């Protein structure tokens, strides 16, 4: 039932404090890191949303310009309410870390809240806490982003603060070391306490033989424990520079006023470093069908997670990534999907099943399939059912009805996104930090419309080849170990 939309979550008026915000954005960050279902088409889906929203509102077009110091700016007007979402996206993530320093990109994200010479000791956060602004940040393999949501008159203020911390960060052991403990507690919460997250790490690590996408964004625990102030500052000076960032502003603003503000604030920040091309070690052609089993005594519901190595929007041939978007929708999105119908409804072997595709990535990305067996159903039975579903699409293609439904759904997602300035800002920011452009994004709905049933079938045949995959089985106990526990 994970995929059900729900309206109200039991939060009462004026009873939720800041917690709901933390949870919501924590969930977002987790989704971005774990490449969840909702990100299908993220790299691109905005175009139509913008066209529809702005055309209906008679609003101005998206603005996109670059300052002299190399900082790129995107402005997405939405004049319905006097609220602005301001985000800065740095083109650096965990895949840019030096081996042995895993978790550093994310650790630095935490430390960015520790203050600067001009605005020491959390004055930025204190100011937001006074004016009624929301803020947070998140890190993925490819980007690190910071955002504030504020009443529009405070936009100049937050731009000033954000420009200041682009190069002005001051760190001491006094504020670095307790924060490392905080990150270790975040690791405990997200990973150590969650068997599903632990096997997810193992599957990704096994999938990537050479590329740093195999490292968890939060880092391997023994390396997080050793990260220090010098590591963080060196990383900061290498990657935090205006020519390595994109500012995205969505809400009650227009391009001209933002341009003037950006020149006054960000425009005053000098380049700190030249940014090298992001050339990570790439994957060899995958050749082996891989399986792994992880036992965790806390597993009360076994699950299967499979990842395939597939092209991202950035690495794909024209049309391939869009075909994978449509394939993921047909194969594993919701109750009408092939996997849910076969495994949950018809063959009655699983309580849930689905798939996802992360198109938003700089390098070769992942297509995921997952299922939870009903009690008494073996992984062999479950996996045979999954393989059968995939083979049927690869061999016989998709039906006209499900094909149209999938395309309609994907394109409508973009329209719905146009209702939410924060979503729009996230889509643009993510796209532009992984090799996309405003233009590429704008043409996405047209590219989805152009996908053919044959292209979807071909995507299943070519990319959902088991030799490109790792399958993980999460169990309570390894076979044969039962006696040892009693």
């Amino acid at each position, binding site marked *: 039932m994970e995929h059900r939309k729900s309206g109200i979550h039991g939060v009462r008026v004026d009873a939720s404090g800041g917690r709901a915000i933390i949870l919501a954005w924590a969930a977002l960050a987790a989704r971005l890191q774990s490449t969840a279902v909702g990100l299908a088409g993220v790299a691109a889906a905005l175009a139509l949303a913008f066209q529809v929203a702005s055309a209906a509102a008679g609003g101005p077009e998206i603005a996109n310009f670059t300052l002299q110091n190399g900082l790129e700016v995107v402005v997405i007007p939405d004049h319905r309410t006097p609220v602005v979402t301001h985000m800065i996206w740095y083109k650096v993530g965990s895949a840019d870390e030096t081996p042995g320093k895993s978790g550093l990109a994310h650790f630095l994200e935490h430390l960015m809240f520790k203050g600067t010479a001009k605005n020491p000791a959390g004055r930025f956060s204190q100011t937001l806490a006074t004016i009624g602004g929301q803020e947070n940040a998140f890190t993925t393999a490819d980007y690190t982003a910071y955002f504030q949501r504020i009443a529009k008159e405070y936009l100049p203020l937050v731009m000033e603060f954000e420009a200041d911390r682009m190069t002005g960060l001051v760190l001491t052991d006094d504020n670095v070391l307790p924060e490392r*403990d905080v990150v270790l507690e975040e690791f405990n919460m997200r990973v150590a306490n969650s068997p599903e997250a632990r096997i997810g790490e193992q599957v990704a690590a096994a999938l990537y033989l050479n590329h740093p996408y195999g490292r968890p964004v939060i880092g391997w625990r023994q390396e997080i424990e050793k990260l220090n102030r010098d590591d963080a500052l060196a990383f900061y000076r290498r990657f935090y520079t205006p020519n390595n960032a994109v500012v995205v502003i969505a809400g009650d603003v227009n391009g001209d006023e933002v341009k003037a503000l950006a020149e006054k604030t960000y425009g005053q920040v000098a380049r700190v470093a030249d940014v090298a091309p992001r050339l990570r070690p790439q994957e060899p052609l995958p050749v082996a069908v891989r399986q792994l089993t992880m036992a965790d005594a806390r597993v009360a*519901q076994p699950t299967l997670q499979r990842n395939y190595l597939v092209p991202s929007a950035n690495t794909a041939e024209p049309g391939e990534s869009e075909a994978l978007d449509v394939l993921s929708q047909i194969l594993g999105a919701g109750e009408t999907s092939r996997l849910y119908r076969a495994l949950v409804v018809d063959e009655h072997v699983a309580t849930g099943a689905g798939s996802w595709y992360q198109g938003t990535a700089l390098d070769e990305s992942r297509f995921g399939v997952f299922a939870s067996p009903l009690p008494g159903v073996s992984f062999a039975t479950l996996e045979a059912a999954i393989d059968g579903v995939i083979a049927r699409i690869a061999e016989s293609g998709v039906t006209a009805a499900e094909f149209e439904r999938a395309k*309609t759904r994907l394109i409508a997602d973009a329209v719905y996104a146009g209702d939410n300035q924060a979503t729009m800002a996230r889509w643009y920011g993510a796209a532009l930090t992984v090799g996309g452009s405003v233009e590429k994004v704008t043409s996405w709905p047209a590219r989805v419309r152009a996908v053919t049933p044959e292209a979807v079938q071909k995507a299943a045949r070519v990319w959902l080849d088991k030799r490109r995959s790792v399958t993980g089985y999460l169990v309570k106990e390894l076979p044969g170990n039962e006696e040892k526990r009693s």
Partner: protein
Amino acid sequence: MNLAARLFLQRAVLGALIFVGAFAALPRSADATTVERIVSPGGIAAWLVSEPSVPLIAMDFAFKGGATQDPPNRAGVANMTAALLDEGAGDIDSDSFHERVESKAIEMGFTATRDYISGSLRTLTENQDEAFDLLRLAITKPHFDPVDVERIREQTLSALRRATMSPNELATERWWATAFAGHPYAQPPRGTLESVPAITVDDLKNFTRKVFARDILKVAIVGNIDAATAGKLLDRVFGDLPATSALSPVAKAIPQGLGQKIAVNLDVPQSVLMIGGAGILRKDPDFMPAFVLNHILGGSAFSSRLYKEVREARGLAYSVYSAVMPLDYAALFMSATATRSDRTSQTLEVIEAEIRKMAETGPTEEELAKAKSFLTGSFGLRFDTSTKIAEQLVLIQLDELGIDYIDKRNGLVEAVTMADVKRVAKRLLDARMLVTVVGKPQPIAAKGG
């Protein structure tokens, strides 16, 4: 009718706080958006925000009476009902229902909480007829076919099995079970591994007969739709429902077991701590002071006292918060965090010390001014999408705060005085609390109570 209310108020005055630097805060009074109370030809009331600049409609609605209406020993009926409404209805079977929803990119979902069962609908304007017709069937003619019921039951049980190994779920469950022993609030809204297998199709049908009625219905509609069209659609969706509900009476409750510390053993690296006591009901005049006070103690995301002491200064936790939680039949104050096993006692001590300190001395003038400034300044952020507006408008109706609440609310925050928060700090925090800790066995500090 037509009790219009402005959505956005002039920004709160920031008083003596000095922080802005070169940029002045400009007062602003955007009142483009209005909330209108409409009544359909058939007599169904709703709150409407007509917003023609988006090509979509968002509708949220709720019926009072959620999991509290589950029969004894059948916890989970409301939750399973919510999950089954779109699994076949009218002359459409489950598969076809999902297909029709999907093929028009309609988003429809239902959720049960302890106090109400709610639904949300989002559709492109061009598909509004199909969307509202499908919703009408889901609410008035759900099938509850045995095969669909068994599938949803298995999914529910699967989630419940997972929960047996989740420290967070266990801490929450144990807290509620202890605090509300003998009351419907003691039961997890999702049910239990014992109760869910016992639920019958008749239980589900009885639930809808009792609860889905026009007298306890609250609706909000936002988007590209006018009042006349909205009125017709309201009648189409809800017009066939009975006029009056048949809710079972639920007793008021106050949390029990205060002063106890309950440890649950689970072999996890990080322990989860929940601390809670009696709170303040939503209609109590002290609610708003309590809300402001809690923001200072543990409500604020990055500047609360708990955040500073537990996370920033000591690195004990990633997430720490407190909340005031008014329900229909009880009110709670809750705080929670998670920390590595060997720091459990220390973390609990720090939180208890902060609660005690706040009870004794209250906040500083600066903290109070800042909290009021944040709460008034951030109110508008709840209203920047159609979906969020619809959600908020239903919550305001459930809490019976009135259609002018959006206009009045920042004034209510501003009116909170230092005397108010100090009085409420004693009432709310100078009290014994019930603590649940789930994790590896650790000596728990034996303190007072």
